[in-house]
């Protein structure tokens, strides 16, 4: 199985590489356009629909510092595709180099069980869970700011902080009443 490995390549100077995985291939484009505008660090963005990544790109691909799974809560397929891609990541990534991003969480037609399932997944893997708004350019900008914070740490560009340390602070935790039925 071709696993994506976190430390098998050398890092670049003042560079951070991020991989955005999204089944719908929509929001990742807007995020990528804002991410590359960052000036203090050179950010390269790789876009994919699912994992595993094609082997032909192995040689040219740089070391991936952060893998972000973007899920649209209004689609069950989105969640299942992200879950299926998880097994193609080397376990080394789950020490602070994986992040989950969820869009459309405010939509009333989303069943609450799906958000709970995403929460449980993120909590069990000790990864942060970010909520983003994908319909406006402001949403992409604010999501990018938060991703850049995590990315810079994961790429080792922030002194005195490591990805593992940050993930201890930002990882998703389950509320104690998650098994209780919700109000509606």
């Amino acid at each position, binding site marked *: 199985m071709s696993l994506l490995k976190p430390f098998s390549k050398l890092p670049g100077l003042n560079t951070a590489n991020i991989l955005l995985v999204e089944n719908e291939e929509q929001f990742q484009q807007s995020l990528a356009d804002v991410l590359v505008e960052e000036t203090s660090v050179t950010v390269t*963005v790789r876009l994919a*629909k699912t994992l595993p990544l*094609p082997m032909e790109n192995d040689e040219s*691909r740089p070391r991936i510092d952060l893998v972000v799974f973007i899920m649209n809560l209004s689609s069950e*397929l989105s969640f299942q595709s992200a879950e299926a891609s998880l097994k193609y990541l080397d376990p080394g990534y789950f020490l602070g180099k994986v992040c989950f991003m969820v869009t459309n969480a405010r939509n009333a037609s989303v069943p609450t069980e799906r958000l709970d399932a995403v929460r449980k997944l993120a909590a069990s893997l000790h990864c942060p869970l970010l909520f983003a708004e994908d319909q406006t350019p402001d949403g992409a900008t604010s999501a990018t700011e938060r991703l850049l914070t995590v990315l810079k740490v994961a790429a080792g560009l922030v002194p005195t902080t490591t990805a593992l340390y940050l993930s201890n602070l930002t990882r998703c935790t389950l509320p104690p009443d998650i098994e209780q039925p919700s109000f509606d």
Partner: protein
Amino acid sequence: MDDSARRLLQRLIRRIPAQMLKPTLDKWDRLTAAHRQSMDFTESKWALTEKLLAIYVIENPDHSMWYALQLVDPEDDAHSVELTQFKEQFKSHLRELIRHVSIKIKKHTDEAVWIRIAWGDSFSRPNHLKPTYVVHHLQTPYVFVTSLTSKLKPLLSQALVLSTRYQAIKDASLSARKLTAIRDLLMRQYQQVFPTKYPSSLVENNQNASNILINKEQAELAASRHQKACEAFGDGMLPQLQSAVYKLETKFRDHTNKTMTEREEAFRCVVKFASTNLLESLRHCASSGISSTPGTSLLSSIPLKGRNYFVITDNGPGPSSQTRQPPN
């Protein structure tokens, strides 16, 4: 245009004094210069009203359902029928079949012949409030009709067959609100994509090509999906079909439901796909990977065979029954 609007127009024209009609229409400034020139103000008011209504329908052909018919078995001289011959033959044949009928034939700029028929019967004058419109492109076997009752269809079919020098006419199982949609679909006026062994990428993702910092990992897969989707449905702007109907007369097949599967007779149901632009949605399903490629031939038959009504029996998809009449 609905009846009340039509009557309103008639009353307006009747009310306006004859010498004021031309200045009023000029001031209204809604007709193009060509239309204004074609309005002959020495005609009766009734004729002028009809002309205005005809202009309205030609400019707004999407207000009612259009049905496609196909002429079959051409005679030897079918391909050389030209306009004046067609006009004379059609008028004389139709007048032979039904006495009180008013026919107006006009050739449009895009080679389409528009025919407006107001039907009457042996007791009453032609009813101009509910005319039938027929569009035919000469030298093609396609005819498009709207607002035709099933009683009058055989008469129209007979007249069309005789005047176009074919032997028969059949229902093409294609209907839509937009005339341009069914016309473009049948005459394949959209961009076709043919299967090639070495496809050059149809999708040139210009935004990413210009920014080398953004890199699509699975670009080749996406490009081949897009290629297959375009092969099945076409590229660029697609004809705006709004629905596709599949009438299933097949046996029920589901292992988990024994009672239904054991029935001998066919399980009849109708599956309808509806959308503002059906072909565009189907192509997007295939190119974004929601449906796997190669897609089912049932859906790709829509553009391939140019129809949107199918009857599926257990022996495989068959032609819709010949006796089907377009519902009115």
